[in-house]
């Protein structure tokens, strides 16, 4: 079994991730193999079993909202791929 081209393109698009034609073809097979392996979970009876999202019993960890020193602007922008003055420079969102 293979995923369809459209399925692979769809899930890559959900991540805004581009793929080459060769990558799409490879993914159709490899993802299908892995997904087939997930079928074992269908046999497990999970009626009335709550989901676990994390393994420690912490919830809503709060702290006082105390102002503290932040990184300097230059430090924050030091790794920016593109910048203008003190700002990150991005491609236009609206044409």
């Amino acid at each position, binding site marked *: 079994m293979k995923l369809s081209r459209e399925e692979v393109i769809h899930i890559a698009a959900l*991540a805004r*991730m581009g793929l080459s034609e060769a990558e799409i073809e490879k993914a159709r097979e490899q993802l299908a193999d892995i997904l087939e392996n*997930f079928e074992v979970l269908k046999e*497990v009876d999970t009626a009335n079993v709550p989901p676990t999202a994390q*393994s420690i019993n912490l919830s809503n*960890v709060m702290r006082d909202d105390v102002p503290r020193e932040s990184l300097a602007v230059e430090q924050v922008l030091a790794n920016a791929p593109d910048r203008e003055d003190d700002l990150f420079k991005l*491609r236009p969102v609206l044409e």
Partner: protein
Amino acid sequence: MTDKHRDLTIHAAHELLKAKKISSVELTQDYLARIKAVDPQVRAVLTVTAEYALEQAKKADERIAAGKAQPLTGVPFLIKDNMSTKGIKTTCGSKMLENFVPPYNATVVEKLHGAGAVMVGKANMDEYAMGSSTENSAFFTTHNPWDMSRVPGGSSGGSAAGVAANEAVFALGSDTGGSIRQPAGFCSVTGFKPTYGRVSRYGLVAFASSLDQIGPLTKDALDSALVMNVISGHDPADSTSAAEPVPDYTKGLTKDLKGMKIGIPKEYFVEGMQPEVDAVVKEAIKQLEALGAKVEWGVSLPQTPHALAVYYIIAPSEASANLARYDGSKYGYAYLDTDNMWEGMEKTKQFGFGPEVKRRIMLGNYALSSGYYDAYYLKAQKVRTLIRREFDAAFEKYDALVTPTSPTVPFKIGERADDPLSMYLSDVCTLPVNIAGIPGISIPAGFAKGLPVGLQIIGKSFAEETLLKISYAFQQVTDWHTKRPEV
């Protein structure tokens, strides 16, 4: 290689430093020379931080002279390249972060600095810690020092190989599904994944946030305890770190295991396990029995075979969310040769991420997408509950569970690279531990076909002391952990 080099544990190095038989600067120079001599073959290190290390060593010597030496003061270590080091490249084994220089230190880095330890380099790893062999590193593959044609395991393969080849006294790794324990087993070092939340993840590049945990790779259990003493504890910067008090992990180490109950879960002796590995593991378990532990064979944890599927749904789902941030806007690789924002993002990810990372992003998005969420993600979370419950029930009867770390000895470089499923299977014994969030350790158990075999010991949440105690006792009557590869 016949160069004279040091083979030291942390505790042995500490004695030498304290007695002023050697200075930290000399020790650091020796380890840097060793890296220079053997790393062209082993390839454990992505960035050697020689200048920085010698500065730190100088400070450590001042501290030792002032009589303020702590056990880690002046001792050279490697750190996996997914932990942020201020002013020093942190690549995460990815082209995406090839030139990323963090503006702050991870909490573990701050803590090791505070203890006076000396960082000699950043260790190679599978890209974003996704892999079991370091073959997914965007830069190069690390070799197993026991057989250079084989993988060191992964994803903390550089950390494990570096310690085994004596390129550092100890290392830090991270473990999301076995990434400390599996390479520790493959390289014959002691690798410890603590309870989820025991060590702060602040400054660790996120892979799967409900599974990731930092831990030490060392020469023995005592060293592991010494590192744990420094890196454990609550951190206000990581709201998932545990408030549990941190004991002195060296305190409970004893030479016998009288009164201890150990269960051997049969599901971990999987189909496809190499008979030679099986024999080594069983021999090691008999050794634990000889030390006074009451061993019960044939314990059953029937959910174990489901762990692989649960893991490969949950970890990629969390990863797909965590890795969405690499869009070429704030840091990391960016495809700038376009005026179109969407094209820029798509090409940034297409060219910045390697094949395994892309595969997991797609798997995660598939499992989380509408129409599949209930069947995959939610179902996996429910089975996760069952796996946890099963461990909880087992730990009402046993102090620890003992299993192989991996079903096979280290495989050949290239052998599984094109077959993701067979690669995933090498972590089949370690994954359930992360799913449950409990601690696990891998210790050297012997050799099969001349290659290392790891023994995994699993405990209940915050039972780090129990695991270290069993490991320490085992290492008092065996010498597997003192064997070194000829590099």
